[in-house]
């Protein structure tokens, strides 16, 4: 039980990071980014190239991956967001799926079809805490996730750039009239999304073998987490991510390993039947 909770919580933390990165662009600029998973994939592949192929220390690798993800975020802001900003949601969905397919194909050309992996953060041997053996990597995941959440909260609640981001998310036009550089804020949002995705990919790489499809799988889980939490809500994304991670782990442990994904999705449908807006969804009336 304890074992399942710890591993579920670790995966849940990664899902929470992924979900935050996924939902942030939707909340700020209304783009449902189906190519988001490829940011996770790129983060993981950059990490394996830097750490495994170029033999860099993990911390330096992480730093360089983050710098690369800033670039990815800027490319997305100009290459994906700008042409799609005023398009209907179905166009955005299929167009970002197109981007996702193209990026996966690109990754296949660059990194090849063979699965890659990354060494764990900390020692590879588990340590014993109150009778539960925990991989040090999982402890790093907990620490990094909590640190990222505190930083994000500080960014949003305490800094002027965070306030500006909230203002743009509420009403971009009014924000522009208040003298906020909306374009810069939107680019920042995309960079933040890419950073969260890349970080999730970096933390995911030691746990799974990384192939070109890892991103889409991660995005699907993040999407499910955001929906359970209530789409567009940051606390919802975090709680939803932890929920999906724990549900997966417990269902695999107590019910069936083979059916854990199917059962998690079934659980999602059941939750939506009773809470059509998710856990933290805004109960908004329909606009006429």
């Amino acid at each position: 039980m304890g074992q399942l909770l710890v591993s579920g919580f670790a995966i849940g933390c990664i899902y929470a990071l992924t979900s935050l990165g996924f939902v942030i662009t939707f909340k700020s600029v209304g783009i449902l980014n189906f190519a988001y998973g490829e940011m996770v994939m790129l983060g993981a592949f950059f990490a394996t190239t830097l750490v495994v192929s170029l033999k860099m220390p993990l911390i330096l690798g992480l730093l360089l991956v983050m710098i690369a993800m800033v670039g990815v975020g800027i490319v997305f802001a100009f290459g994906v967001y700008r042409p799609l900003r005023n398009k209907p949601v179905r166009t955005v969905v299929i167009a970002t799926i197109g981007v996702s397919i193209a990026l996966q194909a690109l990754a296949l050309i660059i990194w090849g079809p063979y699965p890659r992996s990354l060494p764990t953060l900390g020692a590879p041997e588990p340590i014993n805490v109150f009778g539960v053996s925990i991989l040090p990597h999982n402890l790093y995941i907990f620490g990094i996730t909590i640190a990222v959440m505190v930083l994000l909260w500080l960014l949003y609640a305490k800094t002027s750039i965070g306030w500006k981001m909230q203002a743009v998310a509420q009403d971009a036009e009014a924000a522009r009239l208040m003298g906020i550089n909306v374009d810069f804020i939107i680019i920042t949002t995309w960079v933040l999304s890419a950073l969260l995705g890349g970080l999730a990919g970096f933390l995911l790489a030691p746990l799974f073998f990384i192939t070109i499809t890892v991103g889409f799988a991660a995005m699907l889980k993040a999407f499910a987490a955001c929906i359970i939490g209530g789409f567009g809500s940051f606390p919802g994304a975090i709680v939803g991510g932890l929920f999906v991670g724990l549900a997966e782990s417990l269902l695999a442990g107590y019910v069936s390993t083979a059916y854990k994904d199917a059962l998690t999705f079934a659980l999602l449908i059941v939750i939506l039947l009773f809470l059509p807006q998710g856990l933290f969804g805004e109960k908004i009336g329909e606009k006429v």
Partner: protein
Amino acid sequence: MRQRKAFLVPSLGAGVFLLAVLPLLMTSDYWKQLLIQALIYIVIVVGYNFVTGDVGQLSMAQQGFFAIGAYTTAILTTTTAWPWWAGLVASIVVTGFVGAIVGIPTLKVRGQYLIMVTMAFSEIMRLVAVNWYGLTGGAGGITKIPAPSIAGMHFTSKTAIYYLFLGMAIIMILVAWRVRRTKYGRAFLAIRDGELAADVMGLNTTYVKVVAFFLSAVFAGVGGNMFASSFGYISPDTFGLSQTVLILAMLLIGGEGSIAGAVVGAIILTYLPELLRFAAGYYMLIYGALILLITLFLPGGVVGYAKKLWHTTLAPRVFKIPPPPPSVYTPKYDARDLMMEALSSRSSFTKVPKRSKAVAADEGEV
């Protein structure tokens, strides 16, 4: 009108002749197989158009229904001695039933919630196909599915299957064409253009959406039966999320909301891998980029663009067909503007803006 008829009859005749001789022109079984595949996708995408094109609900469930239809036929015709047509009936009944059952709860949710729920449904179907070894043969799939046969006629050659499926596809297209002219067809469009307005007019929108979902599922069931019986082998790999993407891309590239668009999109994306064969490893890259570019620059799809081209350039300039006379009543504002005007004139004496903020915001929103 007479001009149009004179134009229509020969082109229809030429079309029928072309469809009839097509398999005779194809020398290899591979090319005939592609023809069959195009017909299967036509049926699936024409059905998908009900939910996503006409009603405007972005559903990712079509490939789940496709899987159910294919597996129903495959399981019944391999494990029991059921003939092909009984498998077809069973596929229709099962997918229709599941479509209605799944449609009732899921269509109450909207937007991104609907996308997720329908994706989850399709993924559950695939995962069940992978893991329920006793019923579905697991990841290895089901082999030796018998070819179509009716009343002692066995459609074993590719050419025979092509003619059979051509007939089925035409029947399904006619069904879809007919449905669009019933009260349901009009209700679909009413929901797409303004769900709340349709609701206020007394339309049971959830019921109408379930009908659309049911129809989509039945078409996918027929497509599943065609797929299983013509290939003779199915496995869960066929029914992954990339299949959903392909079906959605076919509809959007062809032109959503029209049967012709669904047909054209299905044909284009069936043959695209062949046209881009020279690209080899770069195919997926080009495919992804094409999806992005077509959705960005041809918002109405290929058929929408062709219609626009016809009305603006070809008909008046090239074929010298006079434009239709203007309709008797040309509304100056749309109904919503008129309503806004009526509402606001009661309480305020300021001039009503031509487009109120609520209308503008509504049009800009998701």
